[in-house]
Structure formats: C-alpha cells, structure tokens
C-alpha cells in the first residue's frame, strides 16, 4: 500500500506547545538566518548579479552594518552562503565565523535544482560542501534552499532527490521547511523512516518579500507590514513557548531605515526574558538529542488508497 507519498513529508500531527522545552528552561527559541545570496532567479548567481551596486552594498556596507546590529544584541545567526560566494568573500565569511556565526550552504550558486538529474545534483552538493569546508576550515552541517525574489513560489526550490542527497552527504539539517513552525523531520522513505531534521521557514518573516518586492525599482516597499508580522509572530510564539524565525538579506535590510527597523525589532526582543537564540546548528543538535526521530516521529499506518479516477 502506498504511503501518503507525494502528499505528506512528515507525521500527522506536530508536537503540541506543552511538549516543547528549550535548554535552561528558556521560554522561546529565536533563530536568525542571513541569506547572502544575490541570485534573482532559478539560474542562481551569475556574474551579472555580482556586478551590481546592490550586490556591492550587500557584501560590504550592508553586511558590516548587519553584523554590527547582531553584535549589539549579542545574537548569533546562521549565514546561508551559496558556495560560489565563499572564495570571493572569504575574509568576510571567516570574520563572521570568528564572531560565532554559523556558515551553512545555500546551494552551489543558489540555483533551482528541481530539474536536475540525481547525479548532477549530487555533484553540486559535493562540490559546494568542499568549497565551504575549504574557506571555513570545517564542513557545513546545514543546507538551505531559500527562495529568491523572482521565484514563482516563496518556499525555496528543491527536487524530489534533494532531501535524500543531503542525508547521503551527511548533512545534519535542512534549513528551510514550511510544514511546521518548530524543527520537524522530513521523511524521505517511510518504510525505513529515513529522515532529515528540517528547521522552520516562512516567507512572511523574510525581508525580501516586503522590501522592494518583487524587484528593485518596480517593487513595493512594506517595511511596516514586515515589522508587524515579525512582532505578531514573535508575541504569539513567545506565548506558546515555541520558535520564532526570521530571514534577512544584507542588501535589503542593511539599507538606512530598514536597518533601523531591524534594530528596533531586536531591541523589542531584548525586552523579553528567557529567550534562547541558537544558531541553526545549535538548535538542530539540541532538537536531535531531545526529540529524536525514534521517539518523536509519529508516523501512523497509512490508510491511503489508490482509486481509479483519482490522483494516486
């Protein structure tokens, strides 16, 4: 009997608020992803993307400004880095590692892998991992497939092989999934329960969908809506004791009033006691130990049937 394959990727019900505990009795977990990609569409980063004033700003002044704000509030982030950028900005990547931030992969060049053959995608994961390991002197444990402003959907593009290949390549976690708002297991084989831990992502907390979206010059600017979304989600998740997550792009959020907006929001967060602010890796390691799949991935026997005249 088929499982709910091609429909669901995880168990039938998430962990309830009561089941969730954070280290040292913390009330809520706060995760920050910084996406360094400058890719606009499915091809990923090309030379044209790197040779723009926005890219220059994002990797210089915007990048430094973002690091300064994070440092002001003593926050460690996970930097999702397309591997091709690591050698180009090696000094800045190493400086972020020195400050305690995590470097994770965001594709080989943040390309859409959904149409690749398995071998092609595997080769890209392998090469991306090598490049990042070389620059940071330690291999990445987190992989991201974050969305781009020009994508038709705002969830990030993966293929039907991606998750399995990440397990094969030894990745500890996948950085962006939408099936939950706490870490959860993305199952690639229901019979053997082969799965990879996936951290929550949601585009309503990602700056790029509110700041000159969908593209510079013709996009709409809604920093107020972004701020209200961050605040409303944080307030609700703090009350529930779950997880709050935001995604930032230096080239977007680093620019004058937007940087102030981020500063104001982080100042607001600082007013709350008992926040745990791990990197993606720290969060993943804690979760895997506290909520191992063997005990917390609750896959029900499938009652899914194939019927003539219906999708299978």
């Amino acid at each position, binding site marked *: 009997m088929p499982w*709910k394959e*091609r*429909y*669901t*990727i*995880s*168990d*039938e*019900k*998430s962990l*309830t608020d009561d089941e969730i505990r954070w280290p040292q009795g913390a009330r809520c977990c706060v995760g920050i992803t910084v996406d360094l990609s400058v890719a606009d569409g499915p091809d990923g980063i090309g030379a044209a993307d790197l040779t723009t004033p926005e890219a220059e700003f994002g990797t210089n002044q915007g990048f430094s400004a973002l690091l300064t704000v994070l440092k002001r509030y003593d926050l460690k982030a996970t930097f999702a880095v397309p591997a091709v950028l690591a050698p180009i900005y090696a000094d800045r990547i190493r400086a972020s590692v020195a400050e305690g931030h995590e470097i994770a992969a965001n594709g080989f060049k943040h390309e859409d892998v*959904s149409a690749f053959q398995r071998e092609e995608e595997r080769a890209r994961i392998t090469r991306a991992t090598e490049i990042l390991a070389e620059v940071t002197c330690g291999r990445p444990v987190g992989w991201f*497939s974050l*969305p781009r402003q*020009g*994508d*038709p*959907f*705002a*969830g*990030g*593009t*993966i293929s*039907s092989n*991606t998750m399995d290949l990440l397990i094969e390549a030894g990745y500890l976690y996948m950085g962006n*999934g*939408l*099936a*939950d*708002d706490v870490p959860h297991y*993305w199952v690639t084989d229901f019979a053997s329960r082969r799965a990879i831990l996936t951290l929550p992502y*949601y*585009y*309503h907390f990602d700056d790029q*969908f*509110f700041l000159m*979206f*969908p593209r510079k010059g*013709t996009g709409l600017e*809604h920093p*107020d*809506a*972004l701020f*209200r*979304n961050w605040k*409303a*989600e944080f*307030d*609700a*998740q703090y009350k*529930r004791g*779950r997880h709050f997550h935001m995604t930032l792009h230096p080239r977007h959020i680093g620019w004058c009033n937007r940087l102030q907006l981020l500063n104001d929001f982080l100042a607001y967060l600082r007013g709350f006691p008992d926040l745990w602010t791990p990197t993606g890796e720290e969060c993943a390691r804690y979760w895997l130990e506290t909520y191992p799949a063997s005990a917390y991935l609750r896959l*029900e026997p*499938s*009652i*899914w*049937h194939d019927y003539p*005249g*219906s*999708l299978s």
Partner: protein
Amino acid sequence: MISQLDRDLAELQQAAAAYTARHQFIHDFSYPPGIRIAVNFTLDFDSMLLRRLLNEPPMQLAKGEFGGRVGIWRLIELFDVHHVKATIFTPGRACELYPQALRAAVRSGHEIADHMWEHRVPKEAALEEDHLAKTVAALEQISGKRPVGTRSGHSAALLRKYGYIYRSEGSADQRPHYFVDEEGENCLVHLPFHYVIDDAMFFSFAWLGSENTAQRITDPERVFDIWWAAFRQQYREGGYLNICMHPFVSGRALRVAMLDRLISQMKSLPGVWFPSCEEVARLCLEKFPPRAQAA
C-alpha cells in the same frame, strides 16, 4: 444593422433576467429574538491537496501540510475556547490524510462538510458522481453523519440527490438566499462568502496562479481592520458574515492570535451568534422556505 443591435439587446436582457430568476432572496430575513448577526467561520481544509492537484513543487506541498499537522489543531482549539461552531469544508481524501484532526473536530461539535473529493469537480458526469459519493462516504465515516453542505461547483441536481441542502459559495447577496439550477430546479440554500473575507487573498503567496507582481502579502493587523469593518457593517444591518479560512494560512501562530482578538471583539457586542453553516441553512429552510420547490 438595427435589427442586429436589437437582437443583442434582447439577448442580454434575456440572459440577465434568466440569471436573476434563478435567485430567491430572503427580503424579510431575520434571526430569532436576541440574535443580530450570524458569523460562520468556515475552514477550507485543502492542506496540500490543491497544491498537489496543480502539480506545484515540494515546498508548496509542505506549506499546505502545515494546515493538517499544525493549523487545523490550533483553529479547533481557538473555536472551542470561544464556543464557536465552525464548518470544515473537507476534501474526501483529507479523511485519509488527517483522520485524527477531523475526529477531534467532530468531538468538539464542528460541522464536517464537502469540499470535493480531491479539490476538483470532474467534467465527466459519472466520475463526478463517483467523487461526490466517495466524499459523502468518507465524511460520514469520520463524522458519523452525512454531510449536508458543500463548498464546490458540484451540480445542484447531484447535490440534492445525495441530500445536500446548502452550498457556501458566491456573493449574489450579503445574506443567505436560494439558488436553483438552469432548469429552475434543485434549489439550494446559498451561504455567501466574498473573496475579501478570505485569508488566502492576503497571506498566501501565488494564490490562484497570481504573479509575483500581484502578491498582496500583508500583516494580520491590516486584515483585522478589513474584516472588523465588514462585521460592523453587517452587524448594524442585522446581516450575515462568512469568514473563509485555510488552516495552512490562518493556523499560523500570528494569525490565530489575530482571530482570537477578532472573535473576542465580536463577542463584546450583544447578539452575535457563531453557529455552523448547517444551522444557518436549516434556519432559512424552516423560517423562510423557498417559494416554488421544497428544498
């Protein structure tokens, strides 16, 4: 030349008149004493079914899956706290995907109604009936009673054959009304909903195939203001409001918090009733039966 223009005129007049004639509006619509407005909270429990049907990529399916794993549970809890009876328009196949959540909804007294078998109405008549019959059986099995309402484009004749009494779609009138098919038969109560009171219009990226430039991504406060204004206007009129939500959209923590505030503010006024859609439909049939044909 003139005769062609007159034919056009006659054709348009006839089309408009025939369409209008299919409606029976309830001009003296009112509630039992003490009630000023009925608010139907309706959930379209597609989860990832529509995403799958449209062949959308894996992350889109995961986005829908949030509705089944997380969102539906939170919304049931929210409605229970507020003693709101909601209506969950459920694709038949959702019974195989999320039986636990649906059973929990039934235990709390929420209505389970039809939202197609796999979120489509087949063009072939025999397959359409097959899908409808499968959904009736699946919903009956999970809820212990046959569904009487739908949010779908299933044919009215088929719906009446299977015992349906209402359809929640369209916005031909702000209040519940009756609508018959093109043959003037198979009358159903229509419980109107409007896309402006639909969470996906404000929060779901690429909804209904919309382009990036058309995204209306916004925040809960703005939607609260729009929905509250709609409620206030209907409250003054003694009218009706149907709030259409999707668990994968409105089940997000920030929006559950907004709905909590919205329901609390509604409850601060006297005479606000939160029944299931079935209750409203039965009230119509009992107090304001349709003229021609017994529904």
